[in-house]
């Protein structure tokens, strides 16, 4: 289960994720990101309530990062210690801007 709370203000788009980001739920997030990412200057992912992430979730973050590298900035916030570990193992800590 994944709940996606989306907040849009002018050039800023924030996704607050609640639940699990895995093979089954990642396509939902991918669709949401694609639909809204155009003209976004600041993209934020708030992971306060994200309990789990697998490679399918990482792929969504990576493709968002690739787009934002061309058109603005992207920040990933409030990842739990366990999720940070996964970012570390996969080298995502180097690619993403973690806060």
């Amino acid at each position: 289960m994944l709940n996606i709370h989306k907040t849009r203000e002018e050039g800023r788009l924030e996704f607050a994720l609640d639940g699990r980001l895995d093979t089954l739920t990642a396509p939902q997030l991918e669709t949401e990101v694609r639909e809204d990412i155009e003209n976004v200057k600041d993209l934020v992912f708030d992971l306060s309530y994200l309990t789990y992430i697998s490679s399918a979730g990482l792929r969504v973050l990576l493709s968002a990062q690739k787009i934002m590298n061309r058109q603005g900035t992207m920040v990933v916030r409030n990842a739990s210690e366990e999720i940070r570990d996964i970012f570390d193992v996969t080298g995502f800590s180097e690619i993403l801007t973690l806060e």
Partner: protein
Amino acid sequence: MTFTEENGRVKIALEGRIDSNNAPAVEKELMDALEGRRGAPVTLDAEKLTYISSAGLRVILHVKKLHPDLVITDVSPEVYEIFDMTGFTEMMTVEKAYRVVSVEGCEEIGRGANGLIYRIDQDNVVKVYRNADALADIQHEREVARLALVLGIPTAISYDVVRVGESYGSVFELLNARSFSKILAKEPEKMDWCVREYVDMLHRIHGTLVPEGRLPDMRETAIGWARFDQDYLPKEAGDKLLAMVEAVPHDDHMIHGDYHTKNLQLQGDEVLIIDMDTLAVGHPIFELGSMFNSFVGFSEYDRSVIEKFQGFDSTIGRAFWRKSLAAYLGTQDEARLTDVENKARIVGYMRMIRRSIRRGGLDKPAEKAEIELWKGELLELLGKVDTLLFEREETAETPEGDLDIEAVPENLNDVLAYVDRRLEAVDCPMKAQMQIDVAVEEIFINIAQYAYHPEKGRAKVRVEVSEEPVTVTITFIDRGIPYDPLAREDPDVTLPAEDRPIGGLGIFMVKNTMDDVTYEYKDGSNILRLKKNL
């Protein structure tokens, strides 16, 4: 002391106490009575014997010496304890007196092939055997229940044999238990939960290997049914039925034989299976046949039958059967379900026809019509089904049972739930738990997406936990195309985002978070094993 003789066996009734005060007198009396009959079989009726001391036991030993065939009957529990403590029960046959129990006004909570189960008080139930001379049956059920328990099947074992009217009963402790039939009847919204527990237990039973010769072989029994039915079927159909049953291979895994929801009990949060006297070994199709009968077959002609028997109606019965079959096979594919259901129906009808005919059903109009209905269905099925076998993975040998599931991404949560349940027993830190979940997801999804593409297939998941150091081993087995995911080159995780490929991360994560990952291809199976030290 009274003394009778029947067919050469001398019967002597003992009375009161036998201790050092009267032992010499009792001995003299006995010896006088047995004078000139040396070697004759003797029965000592202990119904009125209230106490026996060691002096009395020596008298009995003396009798045993002169009359090796010595049986002591109707022994009270107190006196039995003396015989038991002193080892007499091993030297000679000592039969207990049976407590008398009445089941008048008691609730019937279960019903099996050989008897009815009543609750006699809050903590105890008694199974009353239909057969008046049931001691051998009781002994058999006790033995098989004990065997099942030792092999890891949660069941209740009787602790006492009692007289109930003209029959015998065996008493079990069953605290505040409710049968699944009752739950389904009163709370049909719990159907899915019931299905899950029911099928879990079924997998557990079918995953249990039974040492050879300990339980009857269901295949032999079913061949007997087919032979019986041959006389009532057109020759071609009868021959085909017998050939199909004979073609089912021998199988040493356990089957319950009467697996319906009255025999599954919820005691606290523990699920127990009772009524073990039909326990056997065999191919699961025989179990499915009797399950079909319990939920559908017996009430196909008269729908009220199931209500009387299970307490819920035929709609619930049919839904429960179909959902259980889907969960058992791990598929929602309607065509596959119907295919296996048809095989189960053949076994079911074959059995019911024999049962009803043997009970004189052909002489009673309503029962004859029922037999005709079953026969019609059976003939139709025999026209289109050619084998009773169905595809299934080899069942696990562990009592816990492996997960055997269709490898499709939609089943990911079931796989994770299964793994997490197995990990409950160990104290798994959050970080390791997440790493294990991620690894399980990556491997299972890999199998689901590639192993059988574009077809579908199954995967087996096994979780083993070893102690000192605590290590979790998770094994994935599939029969798809040979593929070693570990052979794939690791992605360069130091590249900037733009140059990062989008794939390959999953396996990389598995390799880097688990302590050991191995792959082998053996006997047509991909076997991938993950190890994590906790």
